């Protein structure tokens, strides 16, 4: 499969995503500059984490307006897989490709550390996982406090768009497991069609045991398996 890793000025997890996809998962991957307008040769587009445009004004706001986002919109409309991680998620929100917005973490501090996520539904990125599965992945963000108005939340739930929620190690959704104050412990959401996913935790960081975990492979593996047309396990 062929992956595009989009590079915005200020992206800093681009290299990590590339390594995870190319070196660990053995896929073809290219860096794609933020001015690119054609993504048609890819199977999946990854918007990596980092601080695009310094996160000035609001995280992801300026990058959300960059030329490549038009291409991402078209790519998604045709059913291509789009994964926004951390800053990439913020960019998808700012570009209006996903509903909601991010506020500063409730602690007002940057938070780096492991969280547990419960898989809430099937998407191409959770293709090989089951509902209720629990993953351990790291977060690293200052603006990951997901917000949406109550009606919006109802709508998200009605359309089953919440893909991951923060939970404890046993999969229970508790306030203590919420690292940033996100509404309803939301850690990741998708569009109605399910092909565009935004998530705050970093799967690309846990793809090798030596780095502290391997649960990230399950996500990338799912996308690859989905793209290959394999059955869900």
């Amino acid at each position, binding site marked *: 499969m062929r992956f595009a890793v989009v590079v915005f*000025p*200020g992206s*800093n*997890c681009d*290299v*990590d995503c590339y*390594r*995870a996809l190319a070196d660990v998962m053995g896929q073809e991957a290219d860096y794609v500059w933020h001015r690119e307008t054609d993504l048609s040769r890819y199977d999946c587009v990854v918007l990596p*984490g*980092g*601080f695009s*445009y*310094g*996160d*000035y004004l609001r995280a992801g706001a300026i990058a959300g307006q960059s030329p490549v986002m038009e291409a991402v919109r078209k790519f998604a409309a045709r059913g291509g897989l789009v994964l926004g991680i951390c800053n990439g998620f913020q960019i998808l929100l700012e570009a209006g490709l996903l509903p909601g917005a991010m506020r500063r973490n409730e602690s007002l*501090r*940057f*938070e*780096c*550390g492991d969280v547990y996520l419960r898989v809430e539904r099937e998407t191409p990125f959770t293709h090989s996982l089951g509902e209720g599965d629990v993953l351990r992945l*790291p977060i*690293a963000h*200052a603006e990951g406090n997901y917000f949406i108005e109550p009606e919006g939340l109802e709508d998200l739930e009605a359309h089953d768009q919440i893909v991951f929620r923060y939970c404890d190690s046993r999969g229970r959704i508790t306030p203590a497991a919420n690292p940033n104050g996100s509404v309803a412990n939301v850690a990741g959401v998708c569009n109605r069609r399910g092909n565009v996913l935004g998530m705050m935790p*970093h799967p*690309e*960081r846990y*793809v*090798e045991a*030596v*780095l*502290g975990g391997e649960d990230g492979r399950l996500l990338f593996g799912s996308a690859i398996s989905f793209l290959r047309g394999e059955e869900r396990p």
Partner: protein
Amino acid sequence: MKAPWRDMGLRDSEYERICELLGREPTWTELGMFAVLWSEHCAYKHSRPVLKLFPTEGPRVLLGPGENAGVVDIGEKVAVAFRIESHNHPIFVEPYQGAATGVGGIVRDILALGARPVALLDSLRFGPLSDDRSRYIFGGVVSGISGYGNCLGIPTVGGETFFHEAYRQNPLCNVMCVGLVPRDRIRRGVAAGVGNSVMLIGAPTGRDGIHGATFASEELGEDSESRRPSVQVGNPFLEKLLIEACLELTEADAVVGIQDMGAAGITSSCAETAARAGTGVEIDVERVPLRERGMTPYEIMLSESQERMLVIVKRGREDEVRRICDKWGIACAVIGRVTDDGIFRVREGDQVVAEVPARALTASAPVYEPPAEEMPEAIRAREADLSGLPRPEDYTAVLRRLLSSPNLAAKRWVWRQYDFQVRTSTVLAPGADAAVIRVPSTRKALALATDANGRYCYLRPRRGGAIAVAEAARNVVVVGAEPIAITNCLNFGNPERPGVMFQFRECVRGMAEACRALGTPVTGGNVSFYNETAGQNIFPTPTVGMLGLVEDLDHVTRPGFVSPGDWVILLGRNTEEIGASEYLKVVHALDAGEVPALDLELEVRVQRLCLEVIRAGLVRSAHDVSDGGLAVTLAECAFASPGLGCRVSLGEELPPEALFFGEAQSRIVVTASPEAAREILDLARRRGVPASLIGEVTEGELSLSAGDAVIEARVEELRELWEEGLSWALS
């Protein structure tokens, strides 16, 4: 105006020397240039003779002191560039920006060598958290490092955080940066090749950070408010772009030299590159991109605007540089050229505003060797009679108090704010004795730690300096690395005071001795003097930045216990030393007593043995004994492994408080399976290293005994005190 040089911080004798060197009186701009480059910060006037004591050579050293950063060879065609630098004064004025720009500055030093910055560490000292202002500075500094470092995508993987009254008016912020560079791509800050272009890239120049005193003068003249110098504000986004652009530039063969711009901006970077290459440089201030209107040549030359680099480019190939800068959206301009006359000439259009030999600026500052004499109060504190101190009644209660005290409590509150995983290379994150960063495409890894104990250095500077090096080395050894080189940041008070000069000289002497014994040359560093307010000087704080090399990722060892039934072995020996300890501070509010002895020969043997048994695969966990003593060390081993504790017995020959809380040096706790433990003990005997079986790993409880004295508690209960201690102190 009378003697304007005095307002710029120059002595009359220094002014005379400048006149002599030039054969005339300096122009206003020249005077400003001399004033900054001959400042203590840039010229090391009080420290140079003492710094000569450091060993600086070794088989791995590729570039030593004098360059933007030290560079050592780690094999497989890879070199490591690393350096530590202070930003102490700025954080007192503006904690967030002061710390942020401190990160920015040291990163550019590493960049100047063509290295990719891969890790940051921060060594911090503040006043007590009971003090409002200290709390404010602490919070601001941590978020400044977080805000700037995280944005750059460089993981902050380690450091130290220490609170003490001695730092109330002079908090310290030392930041270390480590970079990787292919051996054959190392760059230097040289203005080589007559006729080549001098280019300035990055941020436009503004009035940031120009020495305040000089602005009071008439020559600067008319309007006021808009000309006042301002605090430097960092732009991490621009720095990130600058990093990427510079790394692309180092690949371009059009680039001859790269130099960062730190203190004294254009003046120091041009003078240094010319002096290193033995050339001259001529620039035109009218070609410098400016952020503010109406800047004088003086201001342009002295501006310390952040996020700028100087690049020396082969003549006619400037477009290659422009193309790369354009791609990353950063400004660049040709501001001058390399000449052959050794002169640093500054023009403003047709007019020459400064014309001085480059070496006069960089290498001709006077050197001072003021008198040094030990402070009587330090002697008194060291010799204080501690024999009458009451014995604790409840040792468990003492341990609880120690674990939740800000200096011994977990620093998670700090490092949770740092992105310590970006670049997916962090094998050991903050929380271990040293951080471990893997080296891509090899089995190797770097182990990194910073260390300094201001109280030790205050009470007995020479030993304190040696211990800083020894402890930093021990910290990298226990994670499975060989200590290979150090950088250092020497934070002291006012060197014109004999007591401070004594501390300085003795600390350096002690560090040098330890470096020789441990085989870790000093590849660079930084001196920060004048950490003095209202006659109150800081504790002498020589921060050591240690670089260790892990030969194989399989050797990486963690502090946490691994499995119940494992044996707990102490390498090194317990002694009756309680002086200068955190225990005395927390329980008796004393900064007093004799500093623990350091036998360098024993230290080396303990470390070698530890590394040997780790590499042989015999060790399950390893942790060195430091602040808080053996009880705190064992508790930390338990905290690092949910569910486990230990049962340890320390004999009855020594007083329990010394056994539990004394900070005797050269000790390491390792655990191993019983069979492996026997081998370790056997090897220790053969190598002549004291080692003893002190207990075993258990489940759930921490149980320590020294004769009749016991410490007994559930690990989970202690863990909470330790994890939350810092947050409690903050709220």
